């Protein structure tokens, strides 16, 4: 263990340089986040992730956001275990009928002010699952969405750019 920890010190950080905020994300947030909804959160955001019907592809890349390479916590962004602790709901998947109520309840349990980030092509337009009888629709058809980060799945870097835009916009 000591050898492993010492090596980590000697090798230097694995982390990448911070990317610039995503231009698309800034444009979408400029319209979705009105001046009234902006709050001084001290550049700190707590995120609760909700899988509303994803294939688990997006979850894998959201996990990667927390790895030492992307290290999302250095931007003040933290994943939390309860919607009651969250400022942002990060939602994936086309919303399935079987998950609709759980998503609505999670949204209701999140204290205001709150924002919703829809992840992936499925979150935007249901992706390959569009038209499925067991699918309600995209996330915006169930709860209000402030920011979309498309991709199948979006890369951690894409998500990082979107989230930095969110922090910048709200700070």
């Amino acid at each position, binding site marked *: *263990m000591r*050898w*492993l*920890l010492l*090596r*980590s010190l000697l090798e230097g950080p*694995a982390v990448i340089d911070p990317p610039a905020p995503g231009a698309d994300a800034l444009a979408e947030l400029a319209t979705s986040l009105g001046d009234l909804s902006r709050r001084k959160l001290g550049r700190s955001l707590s995120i609760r*992730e*909700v*899988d*509303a*019907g*994803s*294939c*688990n*592809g*997006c*979850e*894998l*890349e*959201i*996990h*990667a956001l*927390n*790895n*030492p*390479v992307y290290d999302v916590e250095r931007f003040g962004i933290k*994943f939390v*275990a*309860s*919607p009651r602790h969250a400022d942002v709901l990060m939602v994936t*998947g*086309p919303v*399935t*009928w*079987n*998950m*609709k*109520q*759980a998503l609505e309840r*999670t949204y209701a349990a999140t204290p205001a002010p709150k924002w919703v980030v829809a992840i992936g092509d499925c979150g935007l337009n249901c*992706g*390959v*699952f569009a*038209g*499925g*009888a*067991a*699918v309600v629709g995209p996330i915006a058809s169930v709860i209000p969405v402030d920011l979309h980060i498309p991709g*199948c*799945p979006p*890369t951690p870097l894409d998500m990082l750019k979107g989230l930095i835009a969110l922090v910048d916009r709200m700070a």
Partner: protein
Amino acid sequence: MNAPAPAALNDLLQGDTAGRDGFARLRVDEPTWTRLAMGCAAGLHDLGAIWHDAGDVSMLLLDPRAGHRAIVSLATVAGAYPAVSRHHLPASRLERTLRDLGAGRPVGMPDPRNWIDHGVWPNAAPGQTNPRPDKSYEFLPIEGEGWHQIPVGPVHAGIIEPGHFRFTANGELVVRLEERLGYVHKGIEALAAGADIDKVARIAARISGDATVAYSFAFALAVEAALGWTPPPRATLLRGVMAELERLSHHINDVGFICNDASVVALQARCAILREDILQVAARCFGHRLMMDRIVPGGVAADLPADGAAAIETCLKRCETDFAAVMRVYDNSPSLLDRTVTTGVVRPELAARFAAGGHVGRASGRAFDARRNFPYAPYGEVDFAVATRRAGDVDARVWVRVDEVHSSIAIIRDLLARLTPGPITTPRPVAQGPAVGAAMVESFRGDVFIHVRLDADGKVARLHARDPSCFQWPLLEAAIEGNIVADFPLCNKSFNCSYSGHDL
């Protein structure tokens, strides 16, 4: 009157030759169907899948020792047929799913409760002629004093898929876990019906996004078998490379997460860096971090660039040294081993009865690996040992994964060394009327099974996908019994079952 005796697949198969896809196809009558179901319970063969298609119900039966696999079909009477689960309980959730989603009606099910149908669909499932009248769901009752229940989910505390777990405990001691799944049911099989092959290939790649390479691989093999389509040799080797990179990335990642659940965060960080390394190499070599949609019917959609093999080799070297360092710490940390050894035991008899695939089966002595037992290209010519353990605990599942990390690295090197320049796809043959094809591919989680029926125009008439998790989820309920609540995350992560692949 004599009671029916269990029948063995082996005895029925005399003279039957397997189709192009390696599966024998048999039509049976009701008594034989029931005797085969009893044969599953008697351990004469393994149950692989059950599905309903156009008035027929079919089950996949496997006899890995004799090297036989067969799709046995029975004509139903308006969907009705004798339930397999009446004799063989591992069929229970498969038949509840079949009943909830379509026109099949298993008669005599021991557990007739809803499964995928949560009673919230605006319409009956497509093709379902018998929507369930009772939409309520009752968990198994508990009797006695001092028990309490802990409901968890469907929205969990971590970044994971949704499912509901109902623990019955006394203090910290769990005496029963009951799972309730189906939350991410997207209607995949219904979406695939009538769609063209390219669209269904994209859907199949997203049945379970973490096993996207394995699902695309299985779908491609099934379609190729149906159409008599042969991918070029270079594509076949590249498929193997992608499948092994996927396996490597998950095994390393999951070992890291198991350490994380025992609060040894430094090991998880090291594993996460290795996983990121593999995904970046995958993106560089094949154009997608998860290699989604890179295996297509007829070949592969991305060729390895000239410097690709060298990039993969650099990554493999790093995996070898760093993962060995991680496992040295794992093996020398009593506090970590205290959490994994003897935790979450799956008895070998249970793993065999459920025909559990992947590391769950192999850590409990079931030496089944689709790459070895029913080899598909390129694995027929690849030499590797199937890793098994007998202990069946979290630690055994960790070590099976570690062994597979080593064998995957060796397989990738072997396949890369055999690569020669050439085309990566072959053109699709014209469909010669309706056709069927099946395939079984070993994902990091276990054997993925895909069955397709193509109509005369070459469109997909019916897709059936069976995730390895279908036979692993029930064993998780058994594994946690008698453990403490705090050890559930370790057990769960050591299984790492798919929700999306199970719910479809």
